């Protein structure tokens, strides 16, 4: 099949297993973000796809060909490094032309392609500037253009935007996504920034401890996290312990929640509910009762921290959709059953 396929990929550094038995299929033209805390194996996985590290076992296929042992320079890919790795002794144009020069393309052809790429990254007439004279965002674009110079089959980026300030990063995320859609190139980005992943990706791959915990579309990951790690790592969430009563209904803090059921046979489970799905009501009224402990008013949204039977639950709401409450006041907490996710234990 066309696209990138990882089969049972394992990478061990001595006794440490950095990547543990990863299976992943990336169809041609998709944008994949690998997301996880540092040390989760995402960068190692990317380096194996690039051929900079060899897997201990398993196979990597690109468009049906086994590339597991193909050396990096024969894989015809484009990669952007976290440090960008622009060559300091070359100008902007020479940097972008480097992969073409290595492949002995005609001088005329090189110049034409460099001009094309420079206008694509909105830096026309920058060809003769030294790399050291560029701003962070400009260097970023040059690194992207250099990686795309040969129109690679696979575009890999390792924490590409981490060196930019917040505003520029957001703008670059949008730009990168638009560029990828225009070129229709299979792209894999490693990041620890979930906003970045949510903005750009078709598929988000959440990793932890060298394993893929969930691979799905951003909205699926957000709404239907596979386990408590994913639920907690992506966005803010409230993880609540629930117990089953005799009829399979869930009880939370000893109070039954109408309409919420645990999987058959399960006696205990963790429930994830996003703060924006927690509604505050007047005390009583069929909801869990709690006490407000802290209010963080951010203007656009208000985060209310509520203590329910010793556990903290966070509710996020817009200022108008929330009863006026103050710290120390009793409040009702309503959990909407159909947005609660029962996580496997």
């Amino acid at each position, binding site marked *: 099949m066309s696209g990138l396929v990882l089969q049972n990929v394992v990478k061990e550094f001595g006794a440490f297993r950095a990547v543990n038995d990863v299976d992943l299929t990336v169809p041609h033209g998709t944008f994949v973000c690998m997301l996880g805390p540092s040390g989760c194996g995402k960068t190692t996985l990317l380096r194996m796809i690039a051929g900079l590290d060899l897997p201990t076992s398993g196979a990597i296929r690109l468009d049906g060909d086994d590339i597991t042992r193909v*050396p990096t320079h024969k894989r015809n890919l*484009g990669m952007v490094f976290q440090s960008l790795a622009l060559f300091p*002794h070359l100008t902007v144009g020479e940097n972008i032309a480097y992969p073409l020069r290595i492949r002995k393309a005609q001088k005329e052809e090189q110049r034409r392609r460099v001009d094309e790429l420079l206008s694509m990254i909105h830096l026309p007439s920058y060809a003769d500037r030294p790399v050291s004279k560029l701003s962070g965002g400009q260097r970023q674009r040059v690194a992207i253009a250099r990686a795309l110079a040969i129109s690679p089959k696979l575009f890999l980026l390792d924490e590409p935007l981490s060196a930019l300030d917040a505003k520029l990063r957001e703008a670059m995320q949008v730009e990168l996504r638009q560029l990828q859609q225009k070129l229709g190139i299979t792209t894999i980005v490693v990041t620890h920034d979930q906003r970045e992943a949510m903005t750009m990706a078709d598929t988000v791959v959440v990793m932890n401890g060298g394993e893929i915990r969930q691979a799905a579309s951003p909205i699926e990951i957000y709404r239907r996290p596979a386990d408590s790690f994913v639920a907690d790592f992506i966005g803010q969430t409230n993880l609540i312990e629930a117990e089953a009563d005799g009829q399979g209904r869930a009880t939370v803090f000893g109070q039954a929640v109408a309409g919420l059921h645990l999987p058959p046979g399960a006696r205990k489970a963790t429930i994830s509910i996003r703060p924006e799905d927690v509604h505050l009501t007047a005390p009583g009224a069929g909801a869990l009762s709690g006490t407000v402990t802290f209010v963080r008013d951010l203007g656009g949204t208000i985060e209310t921290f509520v203590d329910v039977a010793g556990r903290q639950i966070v509710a996020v709401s817009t200022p108008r959709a929330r009863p006026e409450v103050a710290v120390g006041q009793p409040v009702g907490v309503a959990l909407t059953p159909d947005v609660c996710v029962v996580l496997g234990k």
Partner: protein
Amino acid sequence: MRREPPKTFGDYAPLLFPAGMLTIFFVVPFGTMIAVSFFQRQQGGFYTPAFVFDNYARFLSAFFGGVLGFSLMLAIAVAVCCVVLALPFTYLLTRMARSVQVLWLVALLSVLSLSEVIIGFAWSTLFSRTAGITNVLVALGIMSEAKALTPSFAAVLTGMVYQAFPYTVLVLFPALVRLDPTLTEAARTLGASPLKAFFTVVVPALRNTITATLIMVFIFALGSYLLPQLLGRPQHWTLSVLITDQAIYQSNMPFAAAMAVFLVLVTLGLVALTVVAGRRGEAA
């Protein structure tokens, strides 16, 4: 931290000690040497103050010109050999495990601790007919009979490269350690084989370091006067050997001084040329 340029005399005070030492132990002797180079030589090893150009005039002969040319050529050859050998070596060394690096650096430092005399005699033994490495080659059946490899130009070159190699590695090491390893990785992802990446990225990115190292080894090799005598024939003797010969054995201080001054001037000229050429290369 803000740094202000020094303003009062007191701010410059820490400079006094090194400046004084430099004046007493370098500027004054060097000035004396320049003065002596213009003095008149007296038979019997003395000289009288004068201002004559005889010493320089004598130097401008085919013989001394040839020796000067050979000395420069030898020093350049040593510098080039050292850098060509040391650059890939150091590059690979910086990519090895810490413990391996330490082991190699200790070994190289121990070579530095050897005196030139020991290095010279060791190599003359290794290159000899009776106890040299050719005997090993004979034992292995590669050569038919053992022969002496010294005295010869190759022997001089080998000895001097051996002596200068640790310096070269130590000068290159910090620059190569600082070199971002992702540069070569980036080159590889862009289609360059490891060897091509080394020549298209590592070498050009380190151009200034390489030039500086070449100059350092060149100057270091220019001062060598023992190894050419121990491992070479008289035609492989450098100007430093002749200077020693004139100063100590012929007791002709003015002529020795003139040669030394001339050597310094030529060296400075060459270094300046290299720096200017490097600047122009950078601007282009």
